[in-house]
């Protein structure tokens, strides 16, 4: 590992015609962490990942992996594994041959092909033509290709696409395992709920710019922290009583009152003291999805 950071993006800008896909984006990713790369369609995630592996040339700024531009790496597949497009495979070729070709190009021993096939659970399907694969199987094959060189850095663009719930769970545990081995994983996804269970840190982008880069817990705190939700038969009355006693009532919808903070005992006590029956009482963390929407709504950059 020639750099403290696995991934360094510094004031990266890329324009396609009149469209500024990435606009002065900067962030880093450390080894041993899973970093979620989050943003809506057209936010510049894929363009950034492509710049990191040298598929596109930035107009300005730099995109380094392991401390240098991708094209200067002496062992690219052994340094970075990337899944930028799960469909990038010839439908007429078997999965095993797809991997064998990549191994040959990268100077990787053929036995490693068998290891990664087993590792991603492709098994006997490896000898079938890729054209007959489901999207989930293609994702697994693409992941196998990324792991071929046993890289310390992984970049995965929407790796959960097409995976069934079992596959998503497998992916989550797989990526966590890779990070536990000291690898850096940069993963973009639209499935924010899934990412929340997968990542240590989030890089939120919108309109090609950085919105925020924070550890997940810090991100949740940043967007408002925990809330207490209490479901009762008389929500309006309870909301008024809570407000009288200085609680920050955030909303009242249906039979549920939402209160800022995490003092569920105090909220429950107010209901009990006024003989209001409690159907449900729980403390909630803001979801990554909520955090994302709160951060990106009307605030293009808070960097």
């Amino acid at each position, binding site marked *: 590992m020639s750099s403290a950071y696995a991934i360094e993006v510094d004031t990266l800008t890329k324009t396609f015609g009149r469209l500024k896909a990435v606009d002065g984006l900067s962030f880093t990713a450390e080894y041993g962490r899973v970093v979620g790369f989050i943003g809506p369609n057209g936010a510049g995630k894929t363009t950034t990942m*492509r710049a990191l*592996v040298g598929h596109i040339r930035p107009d300005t700024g730099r995109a380094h992996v392991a401390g240098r531009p991708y094209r200067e790496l002496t062992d690219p*597949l052994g340094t970075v594994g990337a899944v930028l497009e799960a469909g990038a495979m010839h439908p007429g070729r078997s999965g095993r041959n797809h991997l064998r070709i990549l191994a*040959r190009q990268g100077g990787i021993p053929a036995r490693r092909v068998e290891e990664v096939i087993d590792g991603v659970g492709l098994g006997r399907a490896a000898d079938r033509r890729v054209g007959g694969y489901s999207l989930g199987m293609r994702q697994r094959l693409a992941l196998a290709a990324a792991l071929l060189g046993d890289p310390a850095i992984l970049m995965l663009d929407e790796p959960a696409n097409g995976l069934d719930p079992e596959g998503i769970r497998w992916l989550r545990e797989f990526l966590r395992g890779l990070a536990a081995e000291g690898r850096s994983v940069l993963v973009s996804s639209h499935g924010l709920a899934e990412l929340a269970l997968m990542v240590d840190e989030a890089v939120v982008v919108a309109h090609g710019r950085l919105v925020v880069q924070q550890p997940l817990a810090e991100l949740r705190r940043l967007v408002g922290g925990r809330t207490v939700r209490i479901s009762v038969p008389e929500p309006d009355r309870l909301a008024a009583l809570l407000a009288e006693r200085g609680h920050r009532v955030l909303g009242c919808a249906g039979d549920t009152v939402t209160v800022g903070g995490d003092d569920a005992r105090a909220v429950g006590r107010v209901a009990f003291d006024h003989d209001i029956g409690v159907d449900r009482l729980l403390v909630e963390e803001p979801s990554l999805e909520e955090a994302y929407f709160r951060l990106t709504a009307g605030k293009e950059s808070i960097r």
Partner: protein
Amino acid sequence: MSALTRAELMKLRTLRSTWVVLLVLPVVAVVTLMDAALDPVEHNTRIVDFMDVSLAVVSVVVAAFAAALVGGEFVRRTVGLDYLAVPRRVPVLAAKVSAFAGVGAVLGLLSALLATVVAAPIALGRDVVLDGPGDAVLRVLAVTAAVAALSALGAAVGVLVPHPAVAVGAVIGWQIVEMLLGTALGIGDYLPIRLVTTVAHLGGTVPLPVAFGLLCLYVAGAVGVALLVGRRRDLA
């Protein structure tokens, strides 16, 4: 042979379409040759005259095949995987051209050998000049080299026109352009596809070394431009 060229050959080996072309094209070459050879209206005086049409078919199909497969790599974005394995693009693209030159050579050799074997007995029964053994060998080698050159040219077109259908259209369209240029400017003998025929004839209006040199120059020029363009193109 470099690891990259071996990988490119492996790509071709692991596709059914390659084997279909390898098996079918020599047969097509023989059928078109027999069609010309058995035509009572034709008054060919040399055995190589029989081969003209089949050689043209083989050359164009081989170039179109190369253009389609290389152009397809850009549409399917599999070329992105090549660039992940080897970020320096020029060796990657050069390996593709070399691999297709190799496939072209095999197809050229098979077609030329089959054509010679089939044409000889037909020619024996007619008033046709047979090649001496030296000329026959030289002709087979010349056709092999010329088809290899056209295949490399097709691969270069595939890099320049990164879409299989458009790349094939460009190869076929070039034939028409060549005919028009040949007619309008009288330079047909100096253009690539006609040069293949000239090489197969071991010379004509243009002497063999000049024809072969020109063909190499066309290939080098097209490959050079393809490498320059491919090296800088964004895979967005």
